[in-house]
């Protein structure tokens, strides 16, 4: 029976730096073409559901004050999120049944569709906060950039596998990836949506690294990219205001610093043990976006340093477990997509918590499993499903 990944045939002989294949004896799960069998990775599943549960409860706690004040219905936001969480679990279990091979097969299509959506959003997108990021589906809105993130991971993994033996070359290790990144960055830049650009560039770059691209080129690109980023920051007034607010939020307390100051008040007043679940005061309209990008501040206020550390440790364990699964994956593609998904998750968690605690200037990045938002949660749950799907093929978990 042929192994279900392909060897590069066209370029195989050109490259001297071909990595030695590592072969192991594995159980054969390939009796069905589409359905994944095998046991799911229980620790990963448990951690995911645990974090999601805490996240949904936190949405309730963080949102009821404003919901009550503005609509009179304290549970409105929470019930919506709960619905998406349940749907997300269903979606996750469904995704875990999809074979990585199948995913790889459709990854290019997904990439093209997501780029198409990025075009579409520029045309029919809803304007919010000065940019076009959302497409209205009638019952909900969603950000195409969420799909792009996953598409980049899935498609870059696919390319990294296809060019496995030429990854060290500039021609194959850099250019195809760079092309897609460039397209996506330009489209996101037109929305504009800088946080998505940052995340996608980071994830894309790290996918290239994981896929085996030449470190020298990557370093060079990072240097050039960094210089460009600096240029944008120095010229764009919008971002430089954020930098000022970041460096001394108290000085801009009533202006640009309002949000970060209110966030610090929330996080800081939590102290060691927090005010207790539901007891946040900052959520009573002081802290904007208290159930979206700044939900973690409310969580910190209510649960304190102990509770905040605990949830971060859960995230860390989930991510470590994910990378572990990637290392144990039975094929290169599975490994790369898990790596990509875990890296995406880690970057989002890091950037969100770093913003909330004013470690870095504010960017609009939500906290996975916590921040209110149906489509984003569904995407995250689908991603976890993909990881679980990979885990089904790993024997010695």
């Amino acid at each position: 029976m042929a192994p279900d990944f392909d060897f590069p045939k066209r370029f195989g002989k050109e490259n001297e730096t071909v990595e030695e294949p590592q072969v192991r004896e594995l159980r054969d799960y390939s009796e069905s073409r589409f359905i994944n069998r095998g046991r799911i990775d229980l620790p990963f599943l448990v951690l995911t559901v645990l974090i999601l549960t805490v996240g949904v409860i936190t949405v309730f706690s963080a949102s009821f004050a404003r919901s009550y004040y503005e609509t009179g219905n304290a549970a409105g936001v929470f019930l919506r999120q709960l619905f998406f969480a349940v749907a997300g679990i269903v979606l996750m279990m469904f995704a875990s049944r999809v074979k990585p091979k199948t995913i790889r097969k459709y990854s290019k299509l997904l990439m093209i569709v997501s780029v198409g959506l990025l075009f579409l959003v520029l045309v029919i997108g809803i304007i919010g906060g000065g940019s076009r990021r959302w497409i209205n589906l009638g019952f909900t809105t969603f950000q195409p950039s969420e799909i792009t993130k996953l598409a980049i991971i899935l498609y870059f993994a696919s390319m990294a596998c296809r060019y496995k033996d030429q990854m060290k070359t500039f021609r194959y290790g850099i250019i195809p990836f760079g092309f897609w990144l460039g397209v996506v960055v330009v489209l996101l830049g037109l929305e504009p949506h800088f946080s998505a650009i940052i995340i996608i560039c980071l994830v894309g770059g790290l996918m290239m690294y994981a896929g085996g691209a030449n470190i020298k080129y990557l370093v060079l690109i990072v240097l050039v990219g960094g210089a460009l980023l600096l240029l944008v920051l120095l010229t764009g007034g919008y971002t430089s205001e954020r930098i000022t607010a970041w460096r001394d939020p108290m000085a801009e307390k009533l202006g640009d610093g309002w949000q970060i100051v209110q966030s610090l008040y929330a996080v800081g007043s939590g102290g060691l043990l927090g005010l207790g679940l539901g007891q946040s005061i900052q959520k009573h309209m002081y802290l904007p976006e208290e159930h979206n990008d700044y939900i973690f501040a409310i969580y910190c206020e209510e649960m304190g340093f102990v509770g905040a550390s605990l949830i971060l440790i859960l995230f860390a364990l989930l991510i470590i477990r994910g990378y572990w699964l990637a290392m144990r994956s039975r094929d290169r593609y599975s490994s790369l997509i898990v790596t990509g998904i875990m890296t995406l998750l880690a970057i989002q968690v890091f950037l969100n918590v770093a913003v909330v605690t004013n470690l870095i200037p504010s960017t609009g990045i939500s906290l996975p499993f916590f921040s209110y938002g149906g489509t984003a949660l569904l995407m995250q749950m689908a991603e976890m499903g993909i990881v679980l799907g990979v885990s089904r093929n790993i024997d010695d978990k």
Partner: protein
Amino acid sequence: MKKKNNIIKMEVPNKGMVGRTLSLMVVFGIVAFIVLILQLYKVQIVDHELYESNAVEQQVRDTTVAANRGAIYDRNMNTLAMSATVSTVYVSPAELILYEEEDMRVMISSRLSEILGVDYDTIEAKWLDTKSWYKTVAVKIESELADQVRDFKNEYNLKSVHIVPDTKRYYPNGSLASQIIGFVGVDNTGLEGIEAVYDRYLQGTNGRIVRVANEKGVDLPYSGYENYYDASDGNSLVLTVDDRIQHYLEKNLAQAIQDYQVQDGAMGIVMDVKTGAILGMTTLPNYDLNNYLEVNEETLAKLQAQGLSESEYNDAVYNALLKQWRNRIISDSYEPGSTFKIITLAMGLEEGVISENDYFDCSGSIRVKGRVEPIHCWNRDGHGQQTLAEAAQHSCNPAFVNIGLEVGAETFYDYVEAFGFRNHTGVDLYGEGDSIWWSDDVFEDRTNHSQLAAASFGQTFTITPLQLITAVSAVANGGYLMEPYVVSKVLDSDGNVVENHEPTVVRQVISEETSERACAILETVVGSPGGTGKNAYVAGYRVAGKTGTSTDTITEAETGRKEYMVSFVGFAPADDPEIAVLVILDNPSNESGIYPSGGVMAAPVVGNIMYDVLPYLGVEPDLGIDGESGVYEVKVPNVKSYSVSEARATMEELGFKVKIVGSGTEVTDQAPMANVSIAPNSTVILYAGEAKPDKTVRVETLNGMSYRQAKAVLEQDGLFIRSMGVPPSDSLTIVVASQSISPNSEVAYGTVVQVTLIDNDSSIMEGAG
């Protein structure tokens, strides 16, 4: 077909990839989270207190619950000042934008304008500051109006209109005792008088409601973050002031201002001689405490009549305000003149350098060491040989210069100090003025006695009226200098006495014996026919006192115009003094036909005050003391339906003359009516069958007329006379100084007009020496 445990060989991620994944795991699974936890540690643990305190500061709303301000009562528990709950209405432009419909603004403005009587445009302008949460529309409105606003607010469920409780101060007696009581500002803090001095007693402690609110200021739903701290109401004060005595004082001073055309106001004080308690004190013109920012009507009318430019007028109004708030009795020092001779007399007697048996010669002037010009007596012709009592009666300057010289400068100054003239009296009011005296060196200069000489008759120094009456009270009460005071008790909100002000003796200055001797001499100043103070005579009472006439030295220095301050300080009863009264008239006009001197102008005012106050205090008149009949008014009996002859006999027995109108045999009516008191030798009219004329008559101007003339004029018009002040007689020097019914008013036929008589005797018209 089951292929469950088929084993296949597969290529798994090679070492390179595992290594790279591992590196990512280390960075994103471990390092990143360590960084985050460290940052959380910094924010949540290290900087916890900073952020917490800042957060609490913005989350906690502190609402004040105003304590009720204590009331002020007179000594009989009549209310002089009280607080009532009122409301303040404000609008919140920010909430208008947040919550109200677009078209509500105009409607709200017009309704509020309608209810509150505030100009519509003024209210409209409040909305312009759209960021504001607080724009006051009307302060301290009555609950009736507040209820209307509340109904309006509820009707439309308005969120941008707010009504908050506040308190307002009410002064039921208007201007009575205004300078004593004082007033509070809009923030309910005392600004003047007792309200200011005892503010911390009256205020109470405000309560607080500490609550946690959301960013919009709304209480958190389902939260228990609320703490109440109860307000404790302020204490109430009981004053020594008696509202009746205060009223008598103000009434008589106002009459004096009118009678003598006093230009710069009048002041007076009534003191309990034995305790130093102030029973009444005023400076006229005074002001309505309920409208303390409005100038007294008469003053305002005077200012308007002066034709000033707008800025001059505004300045004048402002100065008039400051002046009417000023309690001149305690704040303004003046040159007392001859009233100070009481003090010189007391120290001379106490030191034993003079006695009742000494004779004093007055040639009209006296030479003193260190002064080229001799010092003149107000009577340039001289008083000749006089006893000590006569010297006091005559208010003879050379005699008192001699007493001063006998006492000696150093001892004189010791007494000045001992009588409290060089220190504040310690009265519990703000703004006590400083007295001005020569320095000890100048005064005690052995080569120059002119300062001592002038001081002996009350010149070349200034003291406050309060210092004078306190020292005179000491002379009268057995020698004890008391600390004057106006607050006698502090009550808590349940009416229990919290603090009691006991009379405080500062020191004994003279012996009781000296006090008695001084009182006896001072009684003759009023009681003897030649006494300068005889116009302070009150029938049936033994009044002692001393006149004073001085020039307003400050005005004279500034303008060169000679303006007089005429005064009288008296106390009664002379054998056991209970009250002392000081009256000062500032710049009376000499066009009134009455000579501007203390004896002629101020003494009758004090007499009238005594006449009102002594019976009120329950001091029984002793009509036998005068050696005369002592009866200057008789109550008319009812003789209606008597036979004419019987009626005539009844009337004549009482000393009335009788005129009969009509030819009936029975008295059908009488004039005056029964039970009114009139002068004993008046002619009463009995109507026998004929009707009493049902008409009104015009009252003539009586001021300046002799008693005899006034009586004749009144009787001719069918009116009756009754007199106060000095005993009525046919002497031409006994003249009317004041009449109870103002000239030219129409009164019913047979009405009784009361006049105040003074002795306009040139021999008592002391000038300012």
